């Protein structure tokens, strides 16, 4: 018995040590730093002082912070909840191999899902680089518009938020598609066939059979992509850098700027604790949902 305890411990220890030190540790340390006046350079860098709730008082009277909370919220609703989940669900239902017309649409269906997955595994810096040129004044999107006889638009300057939302939908939809496709496959086909015999239309079958059976996977998907999208940082940093004039300054970008550009470690960390709190609440929901199923 004792030997087997030791065996278990020996197997668990390396992984959990690494996990605790490098993944959990920084989160706990972040909460601690948010109560200090630590800075990246200068006299308070070496000897940070405990300042109690000062950073949080500053946070709650900082209009720029609330602005970034709002921006992040819009970004999450637009790119994750409407965009990735919506487009992922649409594409999964359209390319369901049990559809009777599947062999007539299989070519386009396979092509589209393949490119969608490809976008999902593309490194985020490559996505940023491609989208910068795509949306540039002389870029491909404007070239399409001018070919159609329309006026070119300076997308990043005029519509920065829709730009980062569209780019993030482009990036993340593959995950939702994968989840929904596998959920659709697990629905017994007899139910669909029975409804078809009873004369239910395609929409009715989707609305009253498929959708109710997908509620679980959809919930899981929404929670996960919401959490991930709140944390999205590199892509908007590359595309707009939070600008122009802070119009796309998400919480992650504000936290990064405060800490690494303005060198206020304590306050910058407090800003990012905001992101942590939101995702933690969602994570607990997620866990509850997993337990229930």
């Amino acid at each position, binding site marked *: 018995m004792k030997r087997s305890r030791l065996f278990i411990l020996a197997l*668990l220890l390396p*992984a*959990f040590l690494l*996990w605790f030190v*490098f*993944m*959990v*540790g*920084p*989160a706990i*340390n*972040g909460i601690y*730093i948010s109560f200090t006046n630590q800075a990246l350079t200068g006299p308070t860098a070496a000897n940070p002082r405990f300042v109690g709730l000062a950073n949080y008082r500053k946070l709650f009277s900082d209009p720029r912070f609330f602005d970034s909370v709002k921006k992040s919220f819009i970004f999450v609703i637009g790119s994750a909840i409407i965009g990735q989940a919506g*487009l992922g669900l*649409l594409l999964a239902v*359209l*390319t369901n191999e049990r559809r009777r*017309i599947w062999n*007539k*649409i299989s070519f*386009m269906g396979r092509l*589209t899902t393949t*490119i*969608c*997955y*490809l*976008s999902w*595994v*593309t*490194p985020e*810096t490559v*996505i940023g*680089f*491609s989208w*910068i040129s795509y949306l*540039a004044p002389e870029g*491909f999107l404007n*070239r399409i518009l001018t070919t159609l006889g329309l006026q070119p638009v300076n997308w990043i300057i005029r519509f920065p938020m829709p730009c980062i939302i569209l780019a993030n939908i*482009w990036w993340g939809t593959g995950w939702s598609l*994968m989840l929904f496709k*596998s959920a659709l496959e697990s629905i017994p086909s007899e139910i669909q066939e029975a409804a078809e015999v009873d004369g239910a239309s395609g929409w009715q079958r989707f609305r009253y059979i498929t959708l109710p059976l997908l509620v*679980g*996977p959809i919930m899981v998907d929404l929670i996960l992509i919401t959490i991930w999208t709140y944390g999205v*940082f*590199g892509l908007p940093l*590359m595309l707009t850098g939070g600008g122009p004039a802070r119009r796309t300054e998400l919480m*992650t970008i504000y*936290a*990064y700027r405060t*800490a*690494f550009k303005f060198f206020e470690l304590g306050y910058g960390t407090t800003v*990012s604790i905001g*992101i*942590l709190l939101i*995702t933690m609440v*969602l*994570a*607990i929901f997620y*866990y509850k949902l997993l337990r229930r*199923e």
Partner: protein
Amino acid sequence: MRRLARYINIIGNNLVLLAIALYFLAPLTWLITAAFRSNPSVSVEFTNWTLSNFPRILNPDTARWIRNSLFIGVVTTLISSTLSCLAAYPFARFDFPGKTALLFALVISMTIPLSSVMLPTFSLARWLGLANTLIGVALIAASRQIPTALWVIKEFIATIPVELEEAAWVDGAGRLDTLFRIVFPLSAPGLAVIGMMAFVSGWGDFTISLILLNSEELYPISMGIYKASLDATSWGYVTVDYGLMTAISLIYLIPPAIAFFLTQRYLVKGMVIGAVKG
């Protein structure tokens, strides 16, 4: 009449799929064409085709980016896969005190966005002397793979009949023997999944490199592309070698794409089971 409706349905479906395909393909058009053109600019043109951008990738600077990205990707994969496999075994086979609590902590930690712990992660790395080192980047990337990897591999191990191991124990094999001779080989598809996920995240890492690395000779490909994109948006103050940068971006995208399509069948099973079933 019904045949007509069927045709309209098929055409309509194909058109919607085509529109979605174009949405996904259009932003990549520039990347794919510019890499094969001499002296391309930001706009898409279909002239001056050449392959000469690709050999230029081997110049000392970009070759070093590739080496650094490979190092981060491979070390992240080795560390996170090995440690997760070892730790997943007890979760699949034993009951031990604190098991549920640990699983709960793992799931919760999965959702800590890296961007919310950038500063403390940087402080930690500096404190441990890992700031501005590639191994530091790999260790942080590996630690962030552990929750998902452990979860996925635990599911795979749980499907292996314990009788296989018991038979080997009767024949005198030790616990470690069966672990390495029976359990790990039989969970190969799971290993492929977590290995692929770890490699893609290490190879493609941007955020950890951004906060940890400041010497240019340690830059992975992602940082090189990021610097080029900063130059590209500097309104022409700095000229960007778009031919070279698009060629290397294309090369950068190939390994994760191959890894994904090779493991796709298991990936869906592994990740979706990990996320949905728990």
